[in-house]
């Protein structure tokens, strides 16, 4: 069998999701954002919500997310995405509304908006990309930076006496009455990506069923600012991030 015989439309197994635009993404090579963008595109298309999705893009690396996924977008001020999502969902209850935020946006400047939107039980989903560093601005310490981890603003490693402790946002969210589904996933292997996709699907479905707010934390990498190759960054994440940010469902009230 020749290569040409295999490459036929009827033999197609996997291709770039249709909702993902052809424009090249500005993310660094090997960035986890791309994988999560693909998962979101696939889930929205599979749910048949292409025309009924309103997403909120943050400030941070994912600020241009509206260029890459072909759904309706609103751009929020830094950290205010959950507040904007609350308003959008209240005005359009039949729409699938989600925010897509990084750790600097969600866990630092937007902590108040995030916690209150989750606590109010707004029927939205928050997708939280936690890579323990500020990516876009050049690798500064984030609230989620691990103890001892070196960044440009803590070059001797994060010291709890000086900088406090890493913030576990998903654990906080799981304590709130308004949340329906809180989970923590990664996207570094094929199995992990499949699990993360199921988690995103579940969160979107719960938000459409009006069961409360949902938080999907994706523990991810920032190989550029961690000063590693993409492959090494995935290994480092598995060895260092996952023990501090344990994976799995922290809360599932939707069953």
């Amino acid at each position, binding site marked *: 069998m020749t290569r040409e015989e295999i490459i036929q439309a009827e033999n197609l197994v996997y291709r770039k999701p249709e909702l993902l635009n052809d424009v090249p993404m500005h993310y660094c090579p090997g960035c986890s954002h791309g994988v999560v963008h693909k998962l979101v595109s696939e889930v929205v298309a599979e749910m048949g919500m292409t025309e009924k999705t309103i997403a909120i893009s943050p400030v941070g690396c994912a600020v241009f997310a509206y260029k890459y996924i072909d759904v309706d977008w609103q751009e929020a001020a830094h950290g205010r995405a959950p507040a904007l999502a609350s308003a959008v969902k209240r005005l359009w209850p039949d729409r699938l509304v989600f925010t897509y935020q990084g750790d600097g946006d969600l866990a630092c400047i937007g902590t108040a908006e995030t916690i209150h939107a989750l606590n109010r039980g707004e029927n939205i989903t928050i997708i939280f990309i936690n890579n323990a560093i500020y990516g876009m601005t050049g690798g500064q310490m984030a609230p989620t930076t691990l103890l001892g981890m070196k960044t440009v603003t803590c070059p001797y490693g994060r010291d709890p006496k000086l900088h406090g402790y890493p913030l576990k946002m998903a654990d906080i969210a799981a304590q709130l009455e308004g949340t329906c589904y809180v989970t923590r996933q990664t996207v570094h292997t094929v199995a992990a*990506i499949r699990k993360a996709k199921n988690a995103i699907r579940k969160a979107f479905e719960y938000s459409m069923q009006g069961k409360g707010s949902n938080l999907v934390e994706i523990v991810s990498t920032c190989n550029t600012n961690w000063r590693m190759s993409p492959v090494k960054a995935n290994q480092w994440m598995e060895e260092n991030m996952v023990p501090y940010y344990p994976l799995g469902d922290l809360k599932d009230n939707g069953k």
Partner: protein
Amino acid sequence: MAKMRGATVVDVERCKGCGLCVVACPLKVLALTTKNVNMKGYNYAETVLEDTCTGCASCAIVCPDGCITVYRKKEE
């Protein structure tokens, strides 16, 4: 037992050469180029063991930029 034959097509200009597909492939079908680069100057992924591929799509699933299209056919 029927053998599955696969083929991967890499969108060379979209590829950023991160190498995640190379480690994700269980059969070492893909490798980054060592001499050629694309328009952006990245060493892109290419199929080096064409006959080995089974079309499992692991490479395409981990690709952050969605550069890889995978086809699979059962060998009669």
